[in-house]
């Protein structure tokens, strides 16, 4: 094993680690972040003015498969550093999926047990992945949605406060801090400082808050835009309709330049388009992010729009997202854009 000689002389493995810059990691946690930034070109062909470009950060490349790896790692690291999480305690949180997967992965990698409260109607794949990491799922009433999971989680914690460490992604500033420290600098670097608009979907809002805050420290003129469903009754897993939900404590609406509402059906159509035209399989929140990015970009004369594709699509193949996808044709994309243009001109 490469780690046996740390207290004495360095082993050959340690020496080679120091002098050979190989891309090798010693914990799965070291693989979080530094995700690729992909320019969306084929899907946007003919829809944008020549000086406008759209890029998507592919967070599905994280080891746990989503953007949530970043927040989970930071919240756990800070919990340990502050002495709130220590051996013998159990990590507990409410989550409808990606954060649960990320916490389960980080917990497994660090040796902490994890229990997760989620609405019983989260996708089957997510439940299985969480269990595969050794975490224990606890199901709340599907009719109550993610707020039902939040309430049940609070109850469990109140009944047994000493047993648990609750990262509390909705109210833990470490969630946004993870993005201030990693996602923001990565986007700034990957665009060479050219980013003009940052657009991200909002669930806890950690991504848009933290990344947006960082980007504004580099260039206060960058527009930071949050994306939410157009109705409380929606099918965009991971997103919150803020006006009708328990508002996360880390959400500060005054730090947004604007918000864009997205219809569930439009986001689903975009998922089909991204798969068939761009060759990227993503989840519905990425579809919503792309709809919002395109809505914003269509109105620009020039700009560099960056959005977040929060995860890949393989976790949703059993879900309603794929009902009726066979009818999708490229013309539907043009119809979608025309529909926005019509409604924009009708309201201006």
């Amino acid at each position: 094993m490469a780690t046996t000689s740390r207290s004495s002389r360095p082993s050959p493995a340690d020496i080679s680690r120091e002098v050979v810059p190989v891309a090798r990691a010693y914990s799965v946690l070291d693989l979080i972040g530094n995700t690729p930034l992909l320019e969306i070109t084929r899907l946007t062909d003919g829809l944008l003015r020549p000086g406008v470009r759209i890029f998507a950060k592919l967070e599905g490349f994280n080891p746990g498969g989503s953007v949530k790896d970043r927040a989970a790692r930071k919240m756990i690291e800070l919990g340990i550093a502050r002495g709130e999480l220590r051996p013998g305690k159990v990590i507990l949180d409410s989550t409808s999926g990606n954060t649960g997967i990320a916490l389960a992965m980080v917990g497994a990698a660090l040796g902490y047990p994890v229990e997760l409260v989620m609405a019983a109607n989260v996708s089957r794949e997510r439940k299985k992945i969480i269990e595969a990491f050794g975490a224990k799922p606890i199901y709340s009433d599907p009719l109550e949605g993610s707020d039902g999971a939040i309430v049940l989680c609070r109850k469990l914690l109140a009944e047994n406060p000493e047993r648990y460490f609750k990262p509390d992604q909705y109210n833990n500033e470490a969630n946004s801090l993870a993005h201030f420290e990693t996602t923001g600098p990565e986007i700034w670097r990957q665009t060479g400082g050219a980013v003009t608009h940052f657009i991200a979907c909002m669930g806890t809002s950690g991504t848009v808050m933290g990344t947006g805050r960082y980007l504004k420290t580099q260039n206060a003129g960058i527009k930071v835009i949050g994306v939410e469903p157009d109705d409380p009754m929606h099918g965009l897993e991971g997103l919150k309709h803020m006006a009708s939900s328990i508002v996360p404590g880390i959400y500060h609406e005054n730090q947004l330049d604007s918000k864009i509402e997205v219809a569930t059906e439009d986001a689903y159509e975009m998922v089909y388009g991204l798969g068939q035209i761009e060759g990227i399989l993503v989840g519905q929140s990425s579809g919503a992010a792309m709809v919002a990015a395109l809505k914003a970009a269509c109105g620009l004369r020039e700009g560099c729009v960056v959005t977040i594709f929060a995860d890949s699509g393989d976790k949703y193949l059993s879900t309603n997202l794929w009902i009726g996808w066979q009818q999708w044709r490229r013309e539907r994309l043009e119809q979608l854009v025309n529909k926005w243009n019509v409604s924009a001109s009708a309201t201006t």
Partner: protein
Amino acid sequence: MPVRVRVPTPLRRFTAGSDEVTASGESIKAVLQDLDRRHPGIGERLLDDKGELRRFVNVYLNGDDIRFLSQLESKVKDGDDISIVPAIAGGY
């Protein structure tokens, strides 16, 4: 033919906050149409402009997903139990 309909949180603004209401009809489609008559606005959240069940809405008849029965034409009888469930949960 009254049936019991369980209503999810995002739609309770149409039912004055009630999580359970009654409606009538001989099929799921008829029940949903009656529901919209009694609680205007709820129908368009469930059905699209072609009258099809929206993709992100699941309807259960006595615990069975109507997509695996006869969809909106599934027959309903007195005392049946219908649940409207968003296909997914919001919030990460």
